[in-house]
């Protein structure tokens, strides 16, 4: 049991998202009217070929980037039209990120990396206690004081997940969480994500294994999200 909290339905709601990259003749519409709703306890996997816009969608959903059009709401807080400081506050309190490359700070130990997010100004109280619980629950106590380069890939990713959860967010966004792991570690990480039952989890991935743990599998094709059953095999990896 990683954490318990009362959550509401529809933690994430995105409507008619449009995002174009490049300019002039090189302009390319990556997202063309994407809509998505994820409720608490739901794990959604988004599949798509390289360059289809999966990571861009994840960045928009996490308030790291701004859409050209459309609206996003996380835990009842609108992201669109908000200033950078407000977006940072929403990320701090409501969103946790897990990255493919783990993105642990190499100067800090595993424990310190987890605590880092809890020590940001405005972070919810109780971060230190939660960090200890998460590290314990994820089986990282033995290596908590180790630096990232002294850890295996699986351990690093588990610390990254602990960091994403330390502020008890309602929404967890994972970008290729198993992309840098072997099959065994990848499966362990997916199991952890599957276990976050009281949170909304969005995973963008190439890996078919990720789809296996998801409650819902979507595919991003030509800028639009489709249910898994509605597309032909030629449109996916």
């Amino acid at each position, binding site marked *: 049991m990683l954490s318990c909290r009362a959550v509401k339905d529809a933690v994430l709601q995105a409507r008619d998202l449009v995002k174009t990259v490049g300019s002039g003749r090189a302009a390319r519409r990556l997202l063309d009217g994407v809509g998505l709703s994820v409720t608490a306890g739901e794990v959604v996997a988004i599949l798509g070929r390289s360059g289809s816009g999966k990571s861009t969608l994840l*960045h928009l959903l*996490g308030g*790291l*980037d701004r859409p050209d059009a459309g609206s996003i709401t996380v835990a009842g807080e609108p992201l669109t039209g908000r200033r*950078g*400081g407000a977006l*940072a*506050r*929403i*990320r*701090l*309190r409501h*969103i946790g*990120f897990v*990255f493919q490359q783990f*993105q642990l*700070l*190499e*100067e*800090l130990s595993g*424990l*310190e990396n*987890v*605590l*880092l*997010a*809890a*020590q*940001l*100004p*405005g*972070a919810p109280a109780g971060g*230190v*206690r939660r*960090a*200890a619980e998460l*590290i*314990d629950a994820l089986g990282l*106590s*033995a*290596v*908590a*004081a*180790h*630096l990232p*380069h*002294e850890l295996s890939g699986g351990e690093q990713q588990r610390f990254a997940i602990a*960091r994403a959860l330390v*502020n008890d967010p309602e929404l967890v966004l994972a970008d290729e969480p198993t992309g840098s792991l072997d099959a065994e570690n990848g499966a362990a990480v997916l199991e952890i994500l599957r276990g976050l039952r009281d949170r909304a989890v969005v995973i963008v991935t190439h890996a078919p294994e990720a789809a296996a743990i998801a409650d819902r599998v979507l595919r991003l094709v030509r800028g639009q999200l489709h249910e898994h059953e509605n597309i032909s095999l030629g449109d996916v990896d």
Partner: protein
Amino acid sequence: MLSAAVVVSYSLGGGFARAARRADLPDIIARFDDEPASLIAARIRSLPDIARYSLSYEETGVELSFGSHASGAGVAELLERPGRGQGYALLAGRELPARGADVLVERGLADAWGIHLGDQIDVGGLGPERVVGLVEAPDDVAYPLAAPRVYLSRRALGARLGPERDGRVNLAGIWLRNPRYVNEVLSAARSISYGLRNVQYATRAAVRILLDQAAGIVIDLLVALSLISLLTAGVLLAASARAEVQRRLRALGVRRAVGESRAQVALAQALEGLLVALPACTIGVVAGALATGGPVARLLMLLNEPPAGASMWPPLVGAWLAGVALPAAGAAWPAWRAAREPAISLLRGGELGRARHPRSSLRRAVALAAAPPRRLSRPAAPARGGLATLGVRLVAARRARLLATVLMLGLSTGFVLLMLALASELSALQTDPGALGRRYQLAAALPPGMAPRVRQIPGVRVATPRYDVHAADSFALGVSVEVIAYPGNHLTFEAPPLVSGRRLRGVDQAEVGAGLARALGLSPGARLALALPAGRELRLGVSGVVSSLLDDGRVAYVPAAALLRADPQAPSQLAAVLAPGADQAAVAHALARLGGASAGAASALVGAATEPNGRGAPLVRVLRTVLVAIAAVDGLVCLYALIQACALTVFERRRALAVLRACGASWTGLARVLMGAALALVLPAAALGVPLERYVFGPALSRLAESYAVLPLAASWPPVAVVLAGLALAAAITVVWVALSTARAPVVEGLAER
């Protein structure tokens, strides 16, 4: 900073040589009491190795007035043969004609009073004289540091006013065929100076030493400062270039893969660096030259030295080339190093220069493998300092850069403190005669016998004769010495601080100034041999070395009895120390009335003892402005270095900071990280800089200046507090600036970085 240092060093360093060359300064300048020109000419002609000579009459205490300006202490030099070879350089206008009411005016005077060619100036009751030329004479400093000076043609004056003082001269300039023999000629000159009173010799070399000493301190400081700035700029630029190359590693790999040579890759990076360096360096050199050009030109004018002019171009171009070459080389070097790796390694990315992981080493790896796993024995405690500690670690990851930046900031802190302390002490010099070791307030040209009457003047605590004779060292005749003697304890009237040895106790002892001690290699216990103007020699033992501003420290305090035994006619004044709270003006007035009673003392000098300082006020003001400007420039350099070091850390670790922002850090979170980074640079710098100034720079400069004045240059706590506050402000500006600019960059760009 480099161009500023070049301008100041080159202008001041070569100023005297340029001035002496332009003015054709005599190798020996002799001053003496009025004598017939024919007698002096005959004596000079009897000297060996004489190329030529000039004679003139120097009238002091001349009334000069122009418009609203007036001075009763002017100097009019009556030239026997106006023209080149008189020891001055004509800067504008023409030479004095043989007839007519014309005058040459010293440039410093013309500048201060606003005199132009064609204006008319009143000279000593002669009536209006037309200004036909502006001149400078490098054997003395300019007005207002020295008395206002004009030059007249003796022949023209004689034609107008009759043969007044005809044939009498008191100044001679001597040019030698071979200046190397100046000591021999001086020795011969002293041997034939019998009968002449108050003879003083000055050599071109002695004048140059005096001026070089004054400029030397400023030049040394500026050069040191600019070298430190250059070093820091080099470190920061190299680090910036390294980070840029690291970012472009794959692009370099592609270029190597398609066949570009290592040199071509480095050259391309160098050209990129050049594109930035060219305009930046050009602007920097021009700005530095413009910023310092004005004050330096003013300083040169006060020293009666010409500006460097076109000869400044080669060193400035050299500074420009250095400024351009450094960033270009700094950009090329990391590319050159990176390009030695196989193209495939570059294409895979990787770490430039194989940066070490923190705490990683073979020993660490072995220990790690052998040690049991570390477990959390209790709930995790937060890392002390949190985000600020992260900032410290980010900065500390680049140890060489951290060290260079801390060193630069520390040295700069020390320099700024030194500049502020020096500027503050210069202000004190203007108003505090005690800084010169002088304790009497008034001096009057009255005979020694008047001392009892002076003591009876209300407000006078004590008065005594002060004997003052210009002598020369018997073994180095070019070194002039001001010999000062009091009948009793001279400390009541002049107490220059003792540098070494002890105070004089017997009639055969002397205290010598540090300038004289350095020039002659004297120390306590040595023998001092002085050739007096009267022709006798005075030999005394050196009891101690004192720090004195008088005559650049070329001074000797001797017992009056010893001096009067060798020269019973030694000139004297009466020095008066006033009682606390006494009305100085009233005492001066009473002294003037006493002087008025005796013939010859009608113009009796009654001068405040601080007058020499007051006359030096413009120089002090200019120097203080230069020092404060240097401190301000240094402060800006510190701010730049701090911002650059933090910005560079952010640039190199933008992915880490992007992760932090993805976790929810706003600009205030980033500011906390940067605060740690800035403190990691500023605190050690302050800890280094303050003691450096108090225990190294300050005492060192005090020793350098001890022949000029007593300058306790160890910074007091108020300037230390100001500098520390400045460092804190610089850190705050850096933190806010870099945090805001980082927060403005898109998070996803940082996350996309490898």
